[in-house]
């Protein structure tokens, strides 16, 4: 069987992916520390551990926000695979792909539609994740700037008090932990099942596709 190399992901998308991935890990670790500082130091150790965690968390938060903006930009101005309609399950073609992917993942069938871009199931979770990422930044900003009155009215109308926003922020943290885990697993699984080179494609942007005769 012959394969050809096809360009799937632009450099901006790959950059987005890695900033997003790294900031999520950093945010999860520092965020969990802020929530429940699992190591503390008694008098004398000037570690500044909480202040530092908060600092890293906030810086990573801004990078995370930047990544979200880039992804939304790519939905409109990215290459074909990166655009909104290519894989979000709103068109008949993508909805069909969504169910096809589900039964493929459940080992019910071996047949599936081969695509250069994302499959629709992935894109569904991608959209949910992006939406929750937005909620995460809004609750985060609400808590970060407690003295800002416009953020206060935004926060009060969308989430409630600071404490309620904190709870939402915390719940979504769990979503991100689970999403990260599942995402890594599904990617490795796909890489094993299909010879397209999925994992390396997020580094070099290229996939191997069967040559059409």
């Amino acid at each position: 069987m012959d394969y050809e190399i096809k360009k799937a992901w632009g450099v901006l998308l790959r950059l987005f992916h890695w900033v997003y991935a790294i900031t999520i890990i950093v945010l999860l670790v520092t965020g969990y520390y802020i929530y429940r500082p699992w190591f503390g130091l008694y008098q004398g150790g000037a570690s500044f551990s909480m202040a530092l965690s908060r600092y890293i968390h906030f810086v990573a938060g801004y990078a995370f926000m930047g990544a979200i903006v880039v992804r939304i930009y790519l939905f409109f101005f990215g290459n074909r695979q990166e655009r909104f309609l290519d894989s979000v399950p709103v068109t008949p073609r993508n909805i069909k792909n969504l169910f096809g992917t589900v039964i493929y993942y459940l080992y019910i069938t071996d047949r599936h539609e081969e695509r250069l871009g994302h499959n629709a199931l992935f894109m569904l979770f991608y959209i949910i994740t992006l939406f929750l990422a937005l909620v995460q930044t809004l609750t985060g900003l609400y808590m970060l700037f407690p003295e800002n009155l416009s953020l206060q009215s935004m926060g009060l109308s969308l989430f409630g008090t600071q404490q309620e926003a904190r709870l939402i922020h915390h719940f979504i943290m769990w979503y991100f932990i689970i999403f990260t885990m599942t995402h890594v697993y599904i990617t490795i699984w796909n890489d094993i099942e299909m010879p397209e080179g999925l994992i390396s494609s997020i580094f070099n942007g290229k996939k191997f596709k069967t040559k059409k005769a």
Partner: protein
Amino acid sequence: MSRNLHEADIDIGLTRRGFLKGCAIAAAALGLSDAMIPRLAEAAASAQRPPVVWLHFQECTGCTEALLRASHPDIGRLILSLISLDYHETVMAAAGKQAEDALEGTVKRYEGKFVCVVEGGIPTKDGGVYCKIGGRTAMDILKGVAPKAGAIIAIGTCATFGGIQAAMPNPTGAVGVRDLIHDRPIINISGCPPNPISFLGTVLNYLTFKRLPPTDQLGRPLFAYGRKIHDQCERRAHFDDGRYVERFGDEGHMNGYCLYKVGCKGPETFSNCPAVRFNDVEVWPVLAGHGCVGCTEPGFWDTMTPFYERLPGVKLPVGKGIVQGADSAGKKILAITAAAIGIHAAVGAGKKMAKKKDGRKTGQKTEETR
């Protein structure tokens, strides 16, 4: 003492020194420079004492108590000498019909000018029958008095956000003043109880500058509720440095470390407690070794409990039962996901193996299905 309160020119024992001291404390609380103290004092001394009607509804009278029983009496006295307290159920001498007449008289005589102070939540369920005074429901009294007031000051968390009786499931349908009255300016002095100085500052601000102080989006004056407790706390250095009380009474607790891990709600509560402190003896909860419980926030009884945990103990329906606590739910979902991944991978591996056996028999089938 109570007999004298509504008779304007009877001395209630406030010395000049105490008076100036009270003004200075209020100026500091308001964030004004000391150059403003004479202006405050002047306004306080010469002001037309605004008639005040003080309504009590579902409450414990703790706010009034906090105000009157300040260990250093100047604040309480100053407040009482600044306003003409025409109706206040706890301290007034009149009772029964006399009292009701005083209320009615003030409302009529000073329509649009008097200040209405409300203490306590207002029950709204079943026509508001759960709180009645003189045969009238709290809702009815408030609707009769508040729209005619020049300004309304809701004092205490009950009057501002419903307070403890509004806690889930809120059997009496208790709400705060701002949920019922919309066409009058309302200042919310929340807290359980609020610091008398926040009330004094609001009144002095009103007398000196002829307007109510600027507020946040919940109607709380910014001079008192503009910043989080956590950002003014004296234990903050321990917080930043990662030194926490792990359990009450442990070594960290004895050393005065931060109370974050035993549920201090300072990081989500807006109030001036660490700066102004209580009862003129320089104390407030965190200084005494107990975390903040977040009493100035809306719905604090629901969102700040359990008081010794970081986050509310939400009940989540997961699977068949109810799982207590956000984290145990999160961990369970995580475990289920991990298990699902494991099973999925095992099935995949099993299938591969089965296929390989098939493949040996039927040739290159695996490749073709792709």
